């Protein structure tokens, strides 16, 4: 057995890459997979807080690369899932401390003892992004249904194709079904048509995601969270299972109430 290395990237910042990584890693661990996450955002460490592991960091990625610790020493074990680990980004060092070949070497060292290595890429198309995709077997591009995020996602897809990384799969994050229904948000079909890549998941906008981040407990473990369900489905698809896409008709809340009042539902 050898791990699949998956890089999650986006182009634009703030679209939910880190949340996606934390949730996919948790969902895969819930399915009994051995998962190692790597925070590739040197200088802007974040995955640790979203996963709730910020107090356990002793060594980081750059310590491994510069030989101050062994790879195993920089792997922080998750609180809930004993086969889920995080390798945190270095916080205060210069970005040139990591090279693409370092990432390839670390991932190759991790491959024999894991099922999935998930790399959280920094936003942008510079060094950190190049490092993060160097070892990837598969790339997932996260975007929101907004003009700026879709445009930057297209730029990243173009670079991935030029680098012969193959066609990435799309995670459409923070889709608001009520806005889509009202023709005030790009639909999943619109975004797929524009970007011309395959879809691996649509994550609805969901306040439980923020609550999960606040607590350092990703919503993938929350059975009631719709976003959690969407991430669990993506994790199944990463394992090669054929899971149908969720029905994202607007439900509950003001929109539905208004529709009932106006007799449209």
């Amino acid at each position: 057995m050898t791990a699949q290395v998956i890089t999650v990237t986006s182009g634009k910042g703030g679209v939910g890459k880190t949340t996606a990584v934390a949730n996919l890693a948790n969902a895969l661990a819930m399915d009994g997979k051995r998962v190692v996450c790597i925070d590739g955002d040197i200088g802007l460490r974040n995955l640790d807080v979203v996963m709730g592991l910020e107090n356990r960091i002793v060594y980081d990625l750059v310590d491994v690369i510069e030989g101050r610790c062994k790879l195993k020493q920089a792997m922080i074990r998750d609180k809930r899932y004993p086969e889920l680990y995080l390798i945190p980004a270095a916080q205060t060092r210069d970005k040139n401390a990591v090279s693409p070949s370092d990432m390839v070497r670390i991932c190759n060292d991790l491959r024999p003892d894991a099922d999935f290595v998930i790399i959280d890429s920094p936003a942008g198309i510079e060094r950190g992004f190049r490092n993060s995709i160097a070892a990837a077997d598969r790339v997932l591009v996260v975007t929101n249904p907004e003009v700026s995020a879709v445009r930057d996602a297209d730029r990243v897809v173009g670079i991935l194709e030029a680098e012969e990384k193959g066609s990435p799969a799309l995670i459409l994050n923070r889709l608001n079904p009520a806005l889509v229904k009202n023709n005030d948000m790009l639909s999943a079909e619109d975004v797929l048509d524009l970007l011309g890549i395959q879809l691996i998941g649509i994550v609805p906008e969901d306040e439980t995601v923020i609550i999960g981040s606040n607590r350092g407990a990703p919503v993938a473990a929350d059975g009631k969270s719709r976003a959690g369900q969407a991430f669990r489905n993506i994790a199944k698809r990463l394992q090669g299972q054929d899971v149908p896409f969720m029905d994202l008709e607007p439900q509950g809340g003001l929109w539905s109430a208004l529709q009932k009042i106006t007799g449209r539902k």
Partner: protein
Amino acid sequence: MDFFTRKRSSASSAKERLRLVLIHDRTDLTPEEMEALKDDLLKTIARHIEIDPETIQIGLEKDGREQRLVADIPLRGNARRRTG
């Protein structure tokens, strides 16, 4: 949409604007460069055959992730012959 007469849904406006901007991002061609290219093409074609610049359509089109330059150039000579 029932209560107000909207000009156009904001989603379709977003899609149309993105479609154009992505075509230019992908080809690395600014709208000005595109116009210059069209002019040069028309001049070259007009040196060899008779064309009506008003009827010509040249533009970039998207086919999946591929871009192509598509030109639709009706020929005057043909039209005349057909109509006798």
